């Protein structure tokens, strides 16, 4: 009975978070506008008269991975907002376990990452006819990637003392990740030592897996890397959250 109650608490906390994010249509549109804008800008290559179909095929999985990253990390910013607005206290004053709070916040981040990535995937499909080999593999990769990004977001929100600091910290991580994570440029073509940096970023494995979703071995390696990232960031993130909650 008790684990079930704890799980339901987590679900409600996640639902409440997502409800707030989706409540504001503008919020949703703005957050998706950025990857859409990036998609269109980069789909035209210099000198070409129209979209470069071959490059778009390369680009879209990258953009989808990037969108998952932005979506998840944005959603976890709710933690630092909740802290600064005092609404975190509302949850903390209720008979809810700290684990439920952490699981709830994590679920919200992961769901947000997957949903925003799927929107970009559908846009890519509708406009450029990009197809993915296996939608279930894609979903699995997106979910894993979103969990690892959520872990990163949780660490940032836990460490930041106020929202502005969290925003700056998250951009400090997101923008280099975006350019080094194999979204726009292949990791193999990067000058040394950037490939090594890229290999240290979860986004690199997410974009690689999304592109290779037909090749089981390559995907498996990426999935293992993402799993490791998810476990690592979640562990650290939940420790940090636990510390603030039980001070």
């Amino acid at each position: 009975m008790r684990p079930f109650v704890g799980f339901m608490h987590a679900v409600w906390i996640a639902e409440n978070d997502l409800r707030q994010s989706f409540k504001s249509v503008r919020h949703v549109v703005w957050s998706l506008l950025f990857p859409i804008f990036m998609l269109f800008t980069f789909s035209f290559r210099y000198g070409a008269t129209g979209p470069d179909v071959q490059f778009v095929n390369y680009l879209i999985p990258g953009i989808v991975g990037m969108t998952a990253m932005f979506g998840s990390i944005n959603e976890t910013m709710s933690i630092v907002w909740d802290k600064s607005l005092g609404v975190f206290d509302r949850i903390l004053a209720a008979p809810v376990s700290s684990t439920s709070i952490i699981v709830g916040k994590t679920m919200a981040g992961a769901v947000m990452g997957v949903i925003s990535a799927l929107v970009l995937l559908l846009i890519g499909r509708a406009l450029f006819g990009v197809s993915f080999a296996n939608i279930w593999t894609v979903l699995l990769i997106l979910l894993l990637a979103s969990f690892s990004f959520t872990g990163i977001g949780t660490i940032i929100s836990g460490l930041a003392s106020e929202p502005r600091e969290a925003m700056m910290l998250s951009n400090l991580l997101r923008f280099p990740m975006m350019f080094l994570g194999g979204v726009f440029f292949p990791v193999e073509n990067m000058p040394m030592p950037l490939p090594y940096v890229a290999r240290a970023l979860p986004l690199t494995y997410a974009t690689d897996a999304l592109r290779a979703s037909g090749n089981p071995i390559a995907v498996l390696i990426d999935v293992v890397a993402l799993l490791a990232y998810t476990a690592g960031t979640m562990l650290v993130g939940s420790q940090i959250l636990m510390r603030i909650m039980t001070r």
Partner: protein
Amino acid sequence: MEDAIHVQELTKFYGSLLAVDHVNFSVKSKEIFGLLGPNGAGKTTSIRMICGMLRPTSGTAIVAGYDVNQKPQEVKRRIGLVPDISNLFGELSARVNLDFTGKLYGLDKKTRRQRIDQVLELFKLKERQNDLVKYYSKGMHRRLTIAAALLHQPEILVMDEPTSGLDAQTARLVREIILDLNKEGRAILLTTHQIEEAERLAHRVGIIDHGNLIALDTPEKLRNSSAGVHALEIRILGDVDQQKWIPMIKEADGVDKVLLVEGKIRILSKDLSRIIPVVVSLVDKNGGKIENISVAQPTLEDAFINLTGKSIREEPMSKEEHVRSRLARSGLR
């Protein structure tokens, strides 16, 4: 009957800063207990520990028979907490906010619907129930936070500064609500930095300053505890700035404390018959004319001044007190 809240040696250090220092008190069942003290005195920190939101460095609180260190969830189930600042979700409607709170307290769907209707009706928020809470006025926010705290029908209500920041009319309404909730048999622990409020609402008052509980009694007894101390109030004619007389009067023989209260100079002394002529001649010698002189009833404020050595209203926060109050609220705020 057992106490609603029993606080034992409750202590909290923030690093090396002692925010709450071995505090002991009990809130009896069906009692309104007021924790009175200036900002940064340790009120919010104490409350957060009692409600199981902050771990005490040492000591504990027994709430409705449960030790907060061992059974925080049981304690949380029995307490309704009304925070000093509204902590509702601004992007959600009142109804959705209440529904979420109800879920966290484990109420089933039917019970939630019934009780939400009930509290919305009670606090006259029914018509605005579907509006986003961010468009609510301060008074509505306060009513809704109280409503949310009552949803799970707690035995004990804990309210942090329940009327601070409200206009007079709404403050009066909130006070009436508090008295009604108490009449229904709930024990209420409230904090306040307003003497009048403690005097008006609380059956017993604990005075807290610098993390120490320095006095605990009924408002009447506290008032009389400044036993032997009497208050003299004077107003000096034509002089808008009464302040400049204070240092002068303070020097006079037999005067204990001097402060400005509502435009009058309030002089505390153990021997009024001796200081009246002294003060009168002092003012006269320095070219002032006394417009009004009266002997005042000792108030809770006099007791407070007597105990803490300062007026609760006028002293600005010291740096340490500021750090204290920030620490109590930060981290999770």
